[in-house]
């Protein structure tokens, strides 16, 4: 059977099948109504789903229309948002600059660094004769808040005369003073010197500087070291004895030996 003959047979069969009636084959038990009854319960869900799809498409169309309408409006909202954002940014930058400036003053930063930021490098910022100016209000607050306030005030009388000499020495030391001139600027760490008797207060003063400020170099001095310096200065300048002039025996004085009667030990407690 060649292909042409087969195609002719196929065509004849197709033509014959096209004439089949719209009914089940003879002898078949097929009932379309029964099948519809089985089919119908599953159809409403689909039709509802189709209706929901149609409703969703309608809703989407309305949303698209709204979007198109919004596109036509000028973008005032975007401009407002951008302007407010820029304002917030500028305010934040200004505020951070103010905070850093205040911190420089509080910590007693080196004048060249402070001047580079603030433009005050030509002015001598602190005077040796006014050591209390260096102490910022915040630091004073910290110190006075300490429980050992009375102890600090009691010892302050001892420390202050020593500080005057200490500042003179530090002013001569170029590594610890500024370049503005000898005797003009304050030492780099006057707050530490003022608060050195109390180690707790030193820590309390330094904490905000460590946490907030960028890296700054301070002279790290141990409390014991400061105490040792203080003691040495006291030993150097303290008058342990005083000489009583104009009394005593001249012969015994010319012999070279000191008369015990003329050399009287200084008893501070008795004086004070």
């Amino acid at each position: 059977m060649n292909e042409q003959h087969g195609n002719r047979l196929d065509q004849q069969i197709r033509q014959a099948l096209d004439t089949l009636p719209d009914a089940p084959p003879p002898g078949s038990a097929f009932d379309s109504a029964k099948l519809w009854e089985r089919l119908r319960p599953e159809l409403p869900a689909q039709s509802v789903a189709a209706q929901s799809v149609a409703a969703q498409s309608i809703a989407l169309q309305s949303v698209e229309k709204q979007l198109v309408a919004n596109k036509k409006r000028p973008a005032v909202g975007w401009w407002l948002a951008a302007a407010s954002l820029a304002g917030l940014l500028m305010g934040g930058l200004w505020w951070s600059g103010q905070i850093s400036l205040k911190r420089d003053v509080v910590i007693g930063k080196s004048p060249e660094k402070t001047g580079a930021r603030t433009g005050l490098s030509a002015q001598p910022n602190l005077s040796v004769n006014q050591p209390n100016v260096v102490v910022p209000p915040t630091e004073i607050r910290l110190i006075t808040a300490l429980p050992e306030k009375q102890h600090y005030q009691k010892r302050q009388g001892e420390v202050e005369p020593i500080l005057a000499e200490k500042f003179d020495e530090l002013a001569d030391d170029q590594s610890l003073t500024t370049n503005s001139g000898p005797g003009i600027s304050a030492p780099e760490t006057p707050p530490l010197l003022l608060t050195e008797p109390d180690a707790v207060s030193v820590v309390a003063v330094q904490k905000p500087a460590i946490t907030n400020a960028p890296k700054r170099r301070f002279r790290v001095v141990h409390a014991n070291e400061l105490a040792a310096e203080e003691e040495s200065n006291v030993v150097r300048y303290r008058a342990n004895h005083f000489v009583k002039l104009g009394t005593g025996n001249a012969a015994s004085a010319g012999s070279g030996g000191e008369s015990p009667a003329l050399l009287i030990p200084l008893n501070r407690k008795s004086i004070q």
Partner: protein
Amino acid sequence: MLHQLIEQCQRGNAFAQRRLYDQYANRLYRVSLRYVPHEPDAEEVLMNAFLKIFRNLPDFVYRDDNGLEAWLRRIVVNEALLHLRANRTLPIFRDDDAPEPLDTNELPDGGLEAEQLYDLIRELPPGYRTVFNLYAIEGYTHRKIAGQLHISENTSKSQLSKARALLQKWLTTHGYERTTRQSS
């Protein structure tokens, strides 16, 4: 008319769905029965096919009545093939048990009775019947048949050739005899 019916079905109108079902149920049942000879199975195939029809109807673009019927038949055929695959009743195509093709160009004279032909097609062996239905009636190509049935194109061609030979043999001998017997 049919276009409006389709539009109503696409909107989910249950009455229109019933009308569409009534219009094509018997015709599509015959299509199903040509692939799946067992009647309950053919009903199940038809039911699943209608579910797919109503599900996919919103995406259907109506052009003409012939296009709609071809689309409906294609869904039924695909569903029948799925059923055959699912129940592992897809024919096993073997070439050894095939009858020798008839070397005759004789065709039955006169008009072939439609019901007689329909019954003969259903009586074909599963492999012959499936390939013959797909190629001679649905108009599939051998490549497409090979893809659908996971066979080679040559197997599809040989199955078709043998189906034709068997049909011609039945038509020239048993068919007429049976027709005569049935008519008498």
